[in-house]
């Protein structure tokens, strides 16, 4: 089965699941936003927890699990539902074995967390309970790693630190630290042939308080450019760039750093930062300047490294031409223009397939492309009929000779 990326429709929030196409079939969940309404069976809000569970495997104990949970940054719309739906704590303390499957909390094999991101966020605002719980669990796992000298740490206890912490706080556990501009090549403890993630942010702590404040106010997030192969054969390789809620200053810094060698920013799939907010593209306020607000050329350049046929996905509610932000209509137009230049496509999770009934938006890395699809497990049907699929359907259908070609040999 090929590598898939699923964007769950979680309104203005992020929740993305990557299922790797190798034999391991490992799963990487980037953020989650499981709202109470989604958990309410009487509410029409999409039950994304159910959607997630349908895509996860069960371990030897019958527990649902994700191999990796990456928290891009600790805003509530990126970790909502964590405490309710995920097991946090030592694996031995898992207490849901007797519960029905749909009530068992999901085990996290390895957490990918950035202490710098947490620090910056906690200065800006009070962390929500789910974020605190994540942080607590991350600290537990770091302690386990320290205790075991970063070796032989089991599933459910693993953690990867994304970006060095300040003041050398992570110097003793560098084995589980991924520095900025380094690659993540292991997923939940094992090297992967189908996944490689270039860590682009969080930017290192600045010596300048002013600059550091800018990072905080610009929603410093984990920015990861993930190289995903279809399977171990690596016939198709695509890049998925995810940047949490990172705003304009962050992207300007990235462009300044990488503009001479922008390949690190190249993507086939971009999740628009901060749910298609204008503030990821511009320093200007649209509420102050209206249409005179200008896009930051550098930020846009950083977000414009799209390959031909690439997709740009806004994980947000439906985008209207109004004053909302996020998502923002003017930002959408900017992303659409980026996509158009590469014969690509702009999509919104809140409009897929319809605004009234959104459903997970799936992509599959296969056949030299990044293709729309639906979850294979349940109905096995592609979301989008590709040309090869259509040709296959036609070829099989033609055998039945249900359509007569050519005119009648008899004429009136």
């Amino acid at each position, binding site marked *: 089965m090929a590598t898939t990326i699923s964007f769950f429709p979680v309104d203005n929030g992020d929740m993305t699941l990557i299922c790797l196409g190798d034999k391991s079939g490992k799963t990487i969940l980037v953020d989650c936003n499981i709202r109470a309404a989604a958990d309410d069976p009487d509410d029409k809000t999409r039950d994304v927890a159910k959607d997630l569970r349908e895509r996860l495997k069960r371990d030897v104990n019958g527990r649902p699990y994700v191999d990796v949970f990456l928290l891009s940054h600790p805003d509530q719309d990126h970790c909502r539902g964590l405490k309710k739906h995920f097991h946090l704590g030592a694996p031995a303390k898992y207490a849901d074995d007797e519960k029905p499957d749909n009530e068992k909390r999901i085990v996290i094999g390895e957490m990918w967390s950035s202490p710098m991101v947490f620090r910056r966020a906690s200065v800006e605002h009070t962390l929500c309970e789910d974020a605190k719980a994540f942080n607590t669990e991350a600290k537990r796992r770091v302690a386990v790693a320290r205790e075991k000298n970063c070796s032989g740490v089991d599933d459910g206890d693993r953690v990867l630190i994304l970006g060095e912490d300040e003041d050398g706080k992570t110097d003793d556990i560098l084995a589980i630290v991924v520095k900025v501009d380094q690659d993540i090549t292991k997923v939940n403890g094992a090297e992967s042939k189908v996944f490689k993630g270039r860590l682009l942010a969080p930017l290192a702590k600045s010596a300048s308080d002013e600059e550091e404040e800018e990072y905080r106010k610009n929603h410093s997030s984990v920015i990861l450019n993930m190289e995903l192969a279809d399977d171990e054969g690596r016939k198709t390789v695509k890049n998925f760039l995810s940047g949490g809620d990172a705003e304009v200053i962050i992207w300007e810094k990235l462009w300044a750093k990488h503009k001479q060698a922008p390949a690190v920013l190249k993507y086939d799939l971009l999740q628009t930062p901060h749910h298609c907010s204008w503030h990821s593209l511009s320093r200007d306020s649209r509420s102050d300047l209206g249409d005179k607000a200008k896009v930051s050329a550098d930020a846009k350049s950083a977000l414009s490294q799209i390959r031909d046929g690439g997709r740009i996905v806004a994980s947000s509610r439906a985008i209207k031409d109004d004053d909302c932000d996020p998502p923002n209509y003017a930002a959408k137009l900017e992303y659409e223009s980026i996509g158009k230049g590469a*014969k690509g496509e702009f999509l919104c999770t809140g409009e897929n397939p319809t605004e009234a009934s959104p459903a997970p938006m799936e992509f599959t890395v296969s056949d030299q492309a990044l293709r*729309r699809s639906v979850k294979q497990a349940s109905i096995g049907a592609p979301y989008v009929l590709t*040309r090869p699929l*259509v040709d296959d359907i036609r070829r*099989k*259908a033609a055998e039945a000779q*249900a*359509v*007569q*070609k050519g005119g009648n040999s008899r004429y009136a």
Partner: protein
Amino acid sequence: MPETASIAVRLRQEGVCKLDSFLTQVCNARRLTPEEVGAYRNRSLTSGWEFHIETVLMTRRLQLLLDQRFPFSLPHFFLIDRPEFLTWPHIEEDGRLCLQPENKVAKPDHPAEAAGVLLGQAVDLICACEAGSNEDDFRTEFYSYWNRDLEESPGWIYSLLASDGPCRLVRIWRGEAWSVVGESEEKVLTWLQHSYGKQPQFDSTDLACFLWLPKALLPKQYPRTAGDIYRLAQMTSGGKLLLEQFSRKGKNPFYFILGADSGNGPCLAGVVTRTSPTVDVRGKRRNGTLNGFRPGKIPDSIFTPRLFSDASSASRLKAVRVDSAWIHGRGYDPHQAKLSKKSVIVVGCGSVGGPIAQHLVMSGVGHLDLVDPGTLDWANIGRHPLGAEYVGRNKAEALAEKLQRSYPHASIRGFNASYEELALRGFSATRDADLIISATAEWESESLLNLQHVQGEITGPVLYTWTEAHACAGHAVLLLSSSPCLQCGMTLGGKARANVTEWPEGNETRHEPACGAIFQPYGPVELQAALSLSASLALDSLLGKVHRTIHRVWAGPHALLLESGGKWSPTWLDGHPERESGGFQEELEWGKDELCPICSGSATGAPFASESETRDSASSLHQPFSTM
């Protein structure tokens, strides 16, 4: 006991289930709501599904809908994510894809497979549209696009024009709802009079302009202003100069016919431009084209582009070809040009001559003279092109009237007289006719015709046609020269010397309860083969395919012969046992009789000798039924 559904209803119900299963499980389609289906007006669609396809450029929504004839009709495909109408060919206003028109349902119980095949065609079409590789289809199927999206009251232009270059000024008769355009005023008015009779309004025509374009137009090139016409004219050879002439001699509104080779033959389109007068500062309505010049002093090079400028609107009209080349073969009949110039005289407009005349006109013969002194009776209409509304009328005049109205581009006259009467009056048409057909089977007129032919008063070919009793056999003899002549194969009394069939005494004809009212009993069906025999030989002659005298015989089915009470004649069967079953056509020699009193040269000058001098057929050198 519950009523079981009919086969048709069951197939439909099962078909919808099968299709639903295929579309939802294989194509991940969602079922359309009744409101979404109902949004397609005037389509009588009953149910539908929507799914997504991925093309080179993007993901597009495609809908599949069923109509009320399903599963005996194929599903319809509609493209939702598409550009503006007439940007891509083969896509209708509401997004319906016009897939290969030759698709037909072969198996109503395999709707999913049918949908699968059509899905492939739909995606092929969309990909070709995206690539622009089928843009030329706008040209090859020109009418399908030009005739759409016209104004609500487009008006029609009926065209008698030759659909070819060069650009030229032509004549147009303008009616309220439609117009007729032709090469000359005479042709236009004649057509109108032929169609509708001599009406007072068919008295004059105006100028129109015919522009022959290098290529058929794409939708984005369709003229919307007079300026567009001006620019199109500049693309043609001589068009600019022609437009200058038209601007001087024509009058507002200006009618244009645009023609071009579509790739599937020539196509025509009509455009009318209207120059609106402007109002000056004193409130007077003025023709702004003269601004800056005294009347009569403005040069053509300035006047013409002002007259045909973007300030004047242009309305597109539908042009309908009614010329002979189109009506007879839609431009593909290679014989049309020749036949339209041919002139034929048909003597005898009864059950044989009448249909033959009709077939010749329908085949495109341009000029026909019909001769018959007889009156149409009720008993005739069972095997005649004329029906009840013509009973009591002279057959020739009535048939000419009917055919003329039906084929106004042809020229058809009817003469209420026998051939002999016309000959005595000096009927000159026989000199110029390309073919004379005698379908009277009356010796008086046929022998006169034959004599005229032998003695050189008639120089063209003459075709004699008749049937034997009960139409069990038919003959068509085409004589090209003075010898052999008709008499060579006839007795002096005008009976055929060799017959295919034989009849007991009194069985060949029937009588009506009136004096002299004898008739041949046969219906239109039995007659068809004999008619076809004669009409085809006539066409062969007109097209120059015949270079010698020919005698074609139709021998009807043996069963018909027996049922009618006849039998094959011994001479017909002699040496040809294969002729027993009948039902075939054969070509025979029409041998010259060396003792023929008309053409042999030993004639005594008394062509109509008495029966006592009838030649003994056995002693003559005439060989009945000599094969080729």
